[in-house]
């Protein structure tokens, strides 16, 4: 059997998601947006902090969603890109005294380059092999950050403490609330850009590669370019999320970016629905709040309880939040008819 035949007979790694099903309708989007803008006015700072973290992890899950849901490539190495973004922001803020907002594009660009370069050798791999290669990246990252050569910059195992920014222009907002709206603005910007990317020529190329690589190249798509590009874009967005995470948590340390984080992000993507961008926020909420719920049920068995909850979700709604949204939509349509 030749290599080409093998690829053809292989079942597609990711189920094809039609382009239009990747986003929410206008009405629903506006309702969600209004909820995201108004809720912080009525809750405690701590909840605002948690919401900020949901947005930040949501961005990282979204990035993975573009890579896996869009171009059909797996990655268990997102924590590495997240770490690079976080350290870039932290080092620029603490050592070079650069404004926090300016560190984010730098983090994005560095991670884009990092992801693009990593995408080159990864081109030769697909499916589980690619997942393993990225897994190696995630395992290596915390140790690289501890290396003596970089210790002057990274602070070694001790990590770096980051100063939290105040609201600018004397706005009467608490630090947490300002950071939330700042994160929200960036999230909305990246979300809109991602939706547009997937609807564009490049997005169609991603999806063509995802659905059938050979057919895509026969149609004149530069497969290697678009595959590495998808890696780059995904890494870039993850880097921005990492930078925001460093600012929100006020601390970076190698132990914060272990393989557990990469798996959490992967989990968030599956729970949110692979290839369904709005699901990223749902997935991110899952990875933040469900462990807390599990802990409140049983402290000694929190891991087991989490496993059971996860199993239930995958068993009952294998397509994650997308499936729930679809069912809700059908119900709403039925009600309208009656």
């Amino acid at each position, binding site marked *: 059997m030749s290599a080409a035949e093998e690829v053809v007979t292989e079942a597609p790694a990711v189920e094809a998601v039609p382009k239009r099903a990747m986003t929410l309708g206008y009405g629903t989007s506006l309702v969600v947006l209004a909820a995201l803008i108004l809720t912080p*006015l009525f809750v405690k700072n701590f909840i605002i902090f948690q919401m900020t973290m949901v947005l930040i992890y949501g961005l990282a899950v979204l990035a993975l969603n573009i890579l896996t849901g869009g171009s059909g490539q797996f990655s268990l190495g997102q924590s590495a890109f997240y770490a690079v973004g976080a350290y870039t922001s932290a080092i620029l803020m603490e050592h070079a005294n650069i404004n926090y907002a300016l560190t984010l594009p730098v983090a994005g660009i560095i991670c884009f380059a990092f992801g693009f370069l990593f995408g080159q050798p990864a081109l030769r791999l697909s499916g589980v092999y690619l997942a393993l290669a990225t897994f190696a990246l995630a395992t290596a990252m915390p*140790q690289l950050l501890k290396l003596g050569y970089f210790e002057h910059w990274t602070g070694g195992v001790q990590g770096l403490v980051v100063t939290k920014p105040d609201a600018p222009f004397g706005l009467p907002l608490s630090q947490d609330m300002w950071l939330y709206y700042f994160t929200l603005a960036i999230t909305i910007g990246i979300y809109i850009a991602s939706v547009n990317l997937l609807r564009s020529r490049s997005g169609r190329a991603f999806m063509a590669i995802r659905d059938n690589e050979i057919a895509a190249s026969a149609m004149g798509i530069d497969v290697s370019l678009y595959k590495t590009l998808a890696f780059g874009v995904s890494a870039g967005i993850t880097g921005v999320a990492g930078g925001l995470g460093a600012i929100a948590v006020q601390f970076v*340390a190698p132990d914060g970016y272990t393989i557990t984080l990469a798996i959490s992000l992967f989990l968030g993507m599956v729970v949110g629905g692979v290839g369904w961008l709005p699901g990223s926020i749902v997935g991110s909420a899952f990875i933040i709040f469900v462990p807390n719920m599990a802990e409140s049920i049983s402290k000694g068995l929190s891991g087991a309880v989490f496993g059971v909850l996860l199993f239930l979700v995958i068993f009952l709604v294998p397509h994650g939040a997308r499936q729930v949204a679809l069912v809700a939509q059908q119900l709403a349509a039925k009600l309208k008819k009656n």
Partner: protein
Amino acid sequence: MPFKLRTAVLSAAVIAFAASSGSAFAQKKYDTGASDTEIKIGNIIPYSGPASAYGSIGKTEAAYFRMINDRGGINGRKVNFISYDDAYSPPKAVEQVRKLVESDEVLVVFNPLGTPSNTAIQKYLNSKKIPQLFVATGATKWNDAKNFPWTIGWQPSYQSEAHIYAKWLMKEKPDAKIAILYQNDDFGKDYLKGTKDGLGAKASSMIMLEESYEISEPTIDSHIVKIKAANPDVLLIYATPKFAAQTIKKTAELGWKPLQIVTNVSISVGSVMQPAGFENAQGVLSAAYAKDGSDPQWNNDPGMKKWNEFLDKYMPGADKTESALVYGYGAAQTLAKVIEMCGNDLTRANVMKQAASLKNFTPDTLLPGVKINTSATDFAPISQLQMMRFKGQKWELFGEIISGDVLAD
């Protein structure tokens, strides 16, 4: 804005309440988290994740406060101990500590575990002026009353322990040729620094080799072979339990008999000495500050009797060889003492002040002679240890209690 208004109303109510109650009970003072009937204590510890073995500390502390409450609480107030899982992840630690402070509204955060997690929450707690009491880590940086007046340590720091080894070596073996095997992270490097500082000017002549290993290495045999080739007569093993056991075993296999010292972190008979082989571990040295729960020499010790009774009643079935049970008991007892000393002035400032004025306090589980002392400038509660030697199947203490206070840089 509604939230502003709410805060204003709330604070007005609090001020009004404070004003009206002030005259009634003049001496009682409370901050958030304390009242006539209850004191809320927050805690974070890894119950899940790579360091989940430490979860037993949190469970012991919870059980200890259950016992205190069954006996009527502290000065008539019940302790409400709220402990969350941070999975040894700094971002999670920040989230959980903020939940404790802003949602559960605890009076203090007590015994949070791990150097990364504590570093992540230190700035936040200090800016909010909330005590970060008796942190469960051996890093030296917690003894820094000037820059972080709301953070205080508990156990001896790694550096002060290393100081003690250096002092002992200079006295007992002044012409020693020392090799140091250390873990390449903050834990190992703190020990390395403490040893060098302790040896002072003699460090360069006495230390002939420093060899580091990564925690990810499956075995450290090759390092031992390399060290043996340099032929030192003292081997300092600044390693975590698994690697300490491997080192002791490998040196014996090579038929090499240097004087070996292991850190206090790796003194467990069950998880270090036994796997290394009792016959190989004879004569290994270390230092301790707490009693060993499985050591029969404490069978008639009044403190350990209390500890045993507590475990039988409040944690039936617990594995008494686990050092976490000794640790959690001692830390919880120290906190109970501080709260008792606060009397009816349960403000955060007073809790901190009392925590920094412990004088010769001896929890049931510390070695005889080891005392907790703190002051406005000394935020390292335990800084004494006693040398011990492994003989037969247990540790034998010897020599004086040695003190080794180290300030943060």
